[in-house]
């Protein structure tokens, strides 16, 4: 990964340090850059305890601007959760929607903890925020965790059997579980 970037660029140095710092998953989240692009990260966050998101596992992407950390990252959730719209940049003071209030001393860690922290708060009609009912959010939380289990099961089967024995039909059955 190192060879294709200018090591003189503070953004590159900073992102490599952050990748190093975050390489072990924490209780609350796991985030890592794509293998071939330091400026795009993928993450999973755990829904906060004692909230309607408890038990949920939500995935998303982080896009870093070339002048990071002077400008904020953009954060996009991919797992339906009932609080933030999916496939849209999240509107928080900490994300790319409000560059005027981003602080360079914040980091990817700060941004993810902020997302987790904001989940149980009211969206107040901000762009990209959703106001689903508690029941719907609980259902999505459970579904998100099931989805993670499914993906892990598929990966397990793929790794531990010869590929032919896992027919396309089996995969389809697994996906609807």
């Amino acid at each position, binding site marked *: 990964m190192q060879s294709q970037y200018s090591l*003189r*660029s*503070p*953004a590159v*140095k*900073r992102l490599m*340090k952050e990748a190093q*710092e975050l390489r072990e998953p924490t209780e609350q989240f796991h985030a890592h850059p794509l293998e071939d692009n330091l400026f795009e990260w993928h993450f999973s966050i755990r829904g906060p305890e004692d909230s309607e998101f408890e038990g949920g596992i939500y995935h998303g992407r982080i896009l870093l601007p070339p*002048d990071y*950390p*002077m*400008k904020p990252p953009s954060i996009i959730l991919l797992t339906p959760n009932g609080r933030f719209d999916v496939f849209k*940049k999240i*509107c928080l003071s900490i994300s*790319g*929607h409000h*560059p*005027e*209030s*981003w*602080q*360079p*001393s*914040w*980091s990817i*860690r*700060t941004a993810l903890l902020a997302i987790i922290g904001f989940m149980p708060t009211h969206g107040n009609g901000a*762009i*990209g925020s959703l106001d689903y009912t508690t029941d719907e959010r609980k259902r999505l939380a459970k579904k998100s965790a099931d989805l993670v289990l499914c993906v892990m099961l598929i990966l397990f089967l793929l790794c531990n059997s010869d590929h032919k024995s896992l027919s396309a039909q089996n995969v389809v059955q697994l996906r609807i579980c």
Partner: protein
Amino acid sequence: MATENIEDAKAQMGYDPTTNYDEATMAQQRQIEQEIAGCQPLIGKETDLKTLHDEYSPEDKIYQDKITDLQRKHSAYRRIRMDGNCFYRGFGFGYMEKLLKDKSELQRFKEVVTTSKDEMIKLGFPSFTIEDFHSNFIEVLEKLEKDCGVDELLEIFNDQGYSDYLVVYLRLLVSGHLQKNDDFFMNFIEGGRSVKEFCAQEVEPMGKESDHIHITALTAITGVPVCIEYMDRSEGHGVTTLVFPDDKTPVLTLLYKPGHYDLLY
């Protein structure tokens, strides 16, 4: 009926409630930044002060008189890019340029910067990122200890990545000083905000301009007295001179024109 009219008006203005206008605003902001970046370096060349006369119309008596007054005390200036970071960048470059010729002052300052990191972490700043900005700042000071000349310093300050990292550390120093002395500084903050809120909104984000409170804090924490020559449309033939703090001899001088700082020689 009335609501319909409003909807009609919105439609005529091209307003679409389903569109995310933040995105468009940000794209436009970025474009303006790039246009400015394309025509103005972060720190300009040392230029004769008399060229400043050409920037204003010959009939503009107030400014022409004030420039003449400025020429009595100064001979040259450097333009700093107008990006809201001009005070910090101008201060940083102007002061480090002095440090090139004053090694004992350089040692004193390095000591100040070294201890500032732990102070900030103690105040609750995130150590991981503070460490990042701090080590970059120290790296530049170590370059000054070796045979670094004005040209190399100019190159460092005109490298956007490096230069912004230096600006961030100066902003952090200001934020740390204000928060550490919040009992005192809370008296100067408007809008019912706490010192911490003020720092989050007006000090730490890049591009936020500086006022007296920022200058007071930066000169105090660094121990570097600064003179500011204020040139505005107010009555009188001369510029207004202020020194921060007022009982010290300034190490460098900045020229203030409404909304902007340049460096004076």
